């Protein structure tokens, strides 16, 4: 099998390709090609990285059996979710992975030497890469995230890389074992839905919530940390569609407010950003958002 490893950032050092070649030399399950795509520190990763990445994978889709994206641990859930929704009907796995320690994890003076930091980061990256490459050869066609020993779908990735409302995509016990949550590979060409609209306002549904200039956005996403009704004095936008995430009880909603099925806030935001770009009318956007929310049911 052939796997393309795309490096986007997260490793200190200059000879990244050489370093990765050395790691991949020890892989038996696949031939791994390496592409140095960018070198961005986690906190600085922009949304646009995922579009560039999606286009690059699409261009090389037929040349490989699976893709591994080496990404800094910070912001990876955003990049992976946006990538997942820019592909529709994906037939091969795309695995986001990297060192399990973020760049600033060890920045406590005197606690860890530079050598120790480098050693810990390298070890965690190498063990994650073994997992990622093997996962990229398995019978799954999901966009997934694996750091350390957890393997989760991007569209269900929750805090600390646990899975929201579903089984993990795969587990590591006797090697990698994909679970029933994995979508099998397919030979159909993927549908590219490249690009997104960032003119989306995301706000927690908290007491006394205020949205400044509510009618200037393409869409608004409100998420709740617990089941709760909308505040009665809420300055609801009149034209902009508002998508609500989280329990609502039996509250009657205004015409431009739409409830979403359960999903993580990052997944809802990513899908909304892609939807706002590709579905110009509100009914189309609402239909896109309310059906197949995780994109796990095939064509989104």
């Amino acid at each position: 099998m052939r796997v393309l490893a795309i490096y986007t950032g997260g490793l200190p050092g200059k000879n990244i390709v050489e370093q990765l070649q050395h790691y991949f030399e020890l892989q038996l399950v696949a031939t791994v090609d390496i592409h140095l795509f960018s070198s961005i520190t986690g906190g600085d990763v922009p949304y646009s990285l995922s579009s560039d990445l999606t286009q690059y994978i699409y261009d090389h889709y037929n040349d490989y059996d699976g893709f591994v994206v080496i990404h800094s641990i910070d912001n990876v859930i955003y990049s992976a979710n946006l990538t997942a929704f820019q592909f529709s009907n994906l037939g091969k796995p795309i695995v986001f992975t990297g060192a399990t320690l973020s760049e600033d994890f060890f920045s406590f003076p005197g606690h860890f030497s530079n050598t120790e930091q480098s050693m810990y980061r390298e070890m965690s990256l190498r063990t994650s890469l073994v997992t990622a490459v093997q996962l990229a050869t398995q019978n799954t066609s999901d966009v997934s995230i694996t750091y350390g020993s957890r393997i989760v779908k991007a569209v269900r990735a929750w805090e600390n890389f646990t899975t929201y409302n579903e089984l993990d995509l795969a587990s590591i016990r006797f090697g990698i074992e994909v679970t029933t949550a994995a979508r099998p590979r397919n030979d159909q060409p993927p549908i590219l839905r490249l690009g997104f609209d960032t003119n989306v306002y995301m706000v927690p549904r908290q007491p006394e919530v205020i949205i400044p200039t509510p009618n200037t956005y393409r869409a608004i996403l409100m998420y709740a940390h617990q089941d709760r009704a909308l505040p009665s004095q809420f300055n609801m936008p009149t034209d902009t569609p508002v998508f609500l995430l989280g329990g609502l009880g039996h509250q009657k909603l205004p015409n431009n407010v739409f409830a979403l099925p359960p999903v993580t806030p990052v997944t809802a935001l990513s899908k909304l950003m892609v939807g706002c770009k590709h579905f110009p009318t509100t009914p189309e956007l609402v239909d896109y958002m309310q059906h197949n929310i995780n994109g796990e049911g095939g064509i989104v």
Partner: protein
Amino acid sequence: MNIYLVNNAPTNIVSLLQHKNVNIWSRTTGLPSVITGFSWNALERVDAIILEISYPSDELHYILAQAIVLQRPTLCLYPKNREPREMLLHLQKPSVPKSVVARSYTTTTISEVIGKFLHSIDHTVQLDQTPNIKFTLRLTPAISHYLTWLTEFKNVNKADYLRQLLKDTAEKDNDYQKLM
């Protein structure tokens, strides 16, 4: 001692390890309950890994790759008459750490091969007590005469006498005992 075992070959390595009094973690014996449900790699909790490499599988490739990265003591076993050439070439690469070793076996030597590996990690594991290593010893007529007389006098055979003599010497040899 906890041993992670991957064995898809017909050779019964589990029963051999059971005789060595070690805990075996494998697909057939299962993992300890403490591991189930936790999200860390079981390999971090084993003392050594034994892989039968003549029957490749996804699990084997994954565990071997992780063993190399984690530099865990690993014994890669293959039958003398079924050499996995590609895998052995891979294991000869300079980047493979010394903690990963490959050894051939036959049905008569496998116990000894495993015993030596376990003993190299934990000296409390007894080496095989079966005297199955052949050794040709040439004696002078005088020594042979003495040995014949001695073994008849003590009513033991020559081989048993010489083995016991070496065993006693090894036990009293402080330099050797320090090494062990």
